[in-house]
């Protein structure tokens, strides 16, 4: 036990004695704190900080692409921005905020536990993130890694070796963080549920995080090994990925995508969980198909482990593999479609409240369907061969990652901010934020599909002049997206300091986190809640009245 923990323990004891309602002091959010709620907020704020950095890189990349010639940025700097934009957005923004942020804040509250199973491990897992982020920024002193977020050899073996090595260490750190966090989630969800809660009363967000964690536990170690071998190739003279010495570059792609395709589900499954919480609350209706949505998370987790080769259709992959992985890829659309259907059916004839959280949730629904349809086309080998490594791919994954994951994170923030801080967010500013984000997303990423179909390759600072006008549309869209963060940031900072007090349950929601104060007590409840109903029984009285009326009629 370190001194810090003892101090913290004393702090907890002191708080417990003086008043049950006392909350953490502001500066305690900047320390090694084992409270899952503090850790959740630490994850979210840190991730948002890196989101801004990654966003600035994206804007720089788009500004460069406003003209066909590489005139604004030095091409290797362009490559570094492009690489680290992707790396930051995936490993330091979406994964830590969706899983680490919302997962940590909500899981113990939702299952009725006082904390995660291993609080200290949890805090260690968080603190690996700022460390990793620091390493990534440090790598820019050595030119920044420039081989794309996929770091394929041989490119990654020959460009900026020091920066590339730092990049590998950084990914290994966030990977470790993700494994430690996931094991904590699995144990907490499976073993620390409050006894009065039946399995079919477990909120869908918990099922989603469970599936996510299993996926992270099974796939992250494989990426780590793939990257360690790359590190040895770069620095210690091995030849795992050097064909001239008996190595194999496609091997790297297998190891990389065995993690990095499931990583796509790591980034969207928790978001699906957020959707399943936000939509019923703001549509005032029970979720449609609880079991179907819960099981489909597990199905995505399972099938998602066997689709990775669809990223490698052009890597000399044999025909039988193309066929197998086309089929398995298209299969993933089934459980995903089940979820989409469930949410649309929940919205159907609901008393929808168009709060900012709900706007982002509905926006997500529409964007994810578009991104998903693009995914079905790309998952089909014959089509993929034509658009592989073009802007069609860039357009597609930004629809699912930005239109999907980031919209979901925004939705979650608007929904749970009152619980996290005890303050309401400003709704008009939220609407401005939504409007700018929605328009900006379409304007930036929709034209990319067209560019890709016309054959514009991705990841290159210069392009054929015939694509200039469409590229400028995308660049304008990127500026709008950049601007969209401003009202959001103002809203968060202003509301946190001066916002209207939210009360315990501003949305009249039924999951357990709303049964405690806002922000919740240090150990969540004075006495653990007793679960008496399913988490989604909204409008129950009305439904009863309706059915009575129908019978009478």
């Amino acid at each position: 036990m370190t001194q810090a923990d003892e101090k913290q323990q004393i702090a907890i004891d002191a708080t417990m004695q003086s008043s049950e309602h006392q909350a953490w002091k502001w500066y305690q959010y900047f320390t090694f704190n084992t409270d899952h709620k503090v850790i959740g907020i630490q994850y979210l704020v840190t991730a948002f900080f890196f989101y801004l950095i990654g966003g600035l890189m994206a804007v720089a990349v788009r500004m460069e692409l406003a003209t066909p010639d590489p005139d604004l940025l030095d091409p290797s700097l362009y490559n570094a921005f492009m690489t680290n934009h992707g790396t930051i957005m995936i490993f330091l923004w979406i994964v830590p905020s969706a899983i680490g942020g919302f997962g940590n804040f909500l899981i113990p509250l939702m299952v009725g536990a006082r904390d995660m199973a291993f609080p200290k491990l949890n805090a260690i897992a968080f603190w690996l993130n700022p460390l990793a982020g620091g390493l990534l920024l440090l790598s820019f002193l050595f030119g920044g890694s420039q081989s794309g977020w996929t770091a394929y050899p041989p490119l990654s073996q020959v460009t900026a070796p020091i920066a590339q090595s730092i990049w590998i260490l950084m990914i290994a750190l966030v990977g470790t963080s993700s494994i430690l966090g996931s094991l904590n989630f699995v144990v907490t969800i499976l073993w620390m549920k409050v006894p009065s809660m039946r399995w079919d009363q477990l909120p869908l967000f918990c099922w989603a995080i469970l599936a996510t964690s299993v996926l992270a536990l099974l796939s992250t170690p494989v990426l780590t090994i793939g990257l360690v071998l790359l590190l040895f190739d770069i620095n210690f003279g091995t030849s795992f990925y050097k064909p001239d010495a008996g190595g194999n570059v496609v091997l790297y792609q297998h190891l990389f995508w065995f993690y990095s395709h499931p990583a796509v589900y790591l980034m969207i499954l928790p978001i699906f969980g957020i959707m399943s919480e936000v939509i019923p609350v703001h549509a005032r209706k029970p979720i449609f198909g609880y079991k179907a949505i819960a099981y489909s998370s597990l199905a995505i987790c399972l099938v998602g482990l066997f689709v990775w080769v669809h990223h490698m259709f052009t890597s000399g992959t044999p025909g039988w593999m193309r066929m197998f992985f086309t089929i398995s890829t298209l299969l993933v659309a089934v459980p995903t479609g089940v979820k989409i259907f469930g949410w649309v059916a929940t919205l159907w004839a609901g008393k929808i409240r168009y709060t900012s959280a709900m706007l982002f949730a509905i926006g997500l629904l529409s964007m994810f369907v578009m991104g998903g349809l693009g995914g079905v086309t790309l998952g089909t080998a014959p089509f993929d061969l034509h658009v592989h490594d073009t802007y069609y791919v860039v357009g597609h994954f930004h629809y699912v990652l930005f239109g999907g994951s980031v919209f979901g994170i925004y939705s979650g923030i608007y929904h749970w901010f009152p619980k996290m801080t005890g303050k309401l967010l400003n709704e008009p500013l939220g609407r401005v934020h939504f409007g700018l984000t929605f328009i900006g997303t379409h304007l930036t990423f929709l034209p990319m599909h067209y560019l890709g179909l016309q054959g514009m390759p991705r990841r290159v600072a210069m392009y054929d002049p015939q694509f200039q006008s469409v590229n400028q549309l995308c660049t304008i869209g990127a500026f709008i997206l950049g601007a969209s963060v401003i009202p959001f940031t103002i809203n968060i900072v202003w509301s946190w300091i001066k916002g209207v007090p939210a009360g315990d349950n501003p949305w009249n929601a039924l999951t357990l986190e709303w049964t405690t104060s806002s922000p919740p007590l240090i150990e969540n409840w004075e006495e653990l809640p007793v679960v008496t109903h399913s988490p989604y029984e909204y409008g129950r009285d009305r439904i009863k009245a309706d059915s009575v009326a129908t019978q009478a009629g």
Partner: protein
Amino acid sequence: MQGSIDVTQSAVSHHEAHPDLRTIGLLTFLISESLMFGALFATYLYLKGSAAQWLPEGTEVELLVPSINTIILISSSFVIHKGDTAIKKNDVKGLRLWYGVTALMGAIFLGGQIYEYLSLGYGLTTNIFANCFYMMTGFHGLHVLIGLLLILGVIWRSRREGHYSKSKHTGVEMAEIYWHFVDVIWIILFTLVYILTAF
């Protein structure tokens, strides 16, 4: 590892006791960890499958020392279990004895491996097989070292009266589970790298 868990316990023990989840946590972690070795094994098989000749010309694996090492490591899994049985009968002396023997066997294993490395005549960068060989055995050796440190940690902690007892010995069990894990991985590794290349 154990220190962190003590804190865990004290941090949540204000109101209700909740069951000790440390062993379950370790098992979950080991499932994840085994995928690391899985990736290494897959890498090995992939490179072996795509090579024209395996082993490369002039490279041979040593069999005698590794076989003795294997026998020692597998036996140590039974020895460590005797230590676990002892503490379940409140026999701290027995625990210290058997865990001490296990630690010794683990140290001999590591010594044998270093001897093997020095006598092989090829190094990490010699050829693609040597790359795989040193990565796999080295990564496993690192795990043996960690297991050894866990065992020594248990012996160190057991010096305090009543630290481990019949009803309180999760740390002892965790070290044992980890040691079995290291053992099982070795059996697969030995089969792949030594037996299947020798015949």
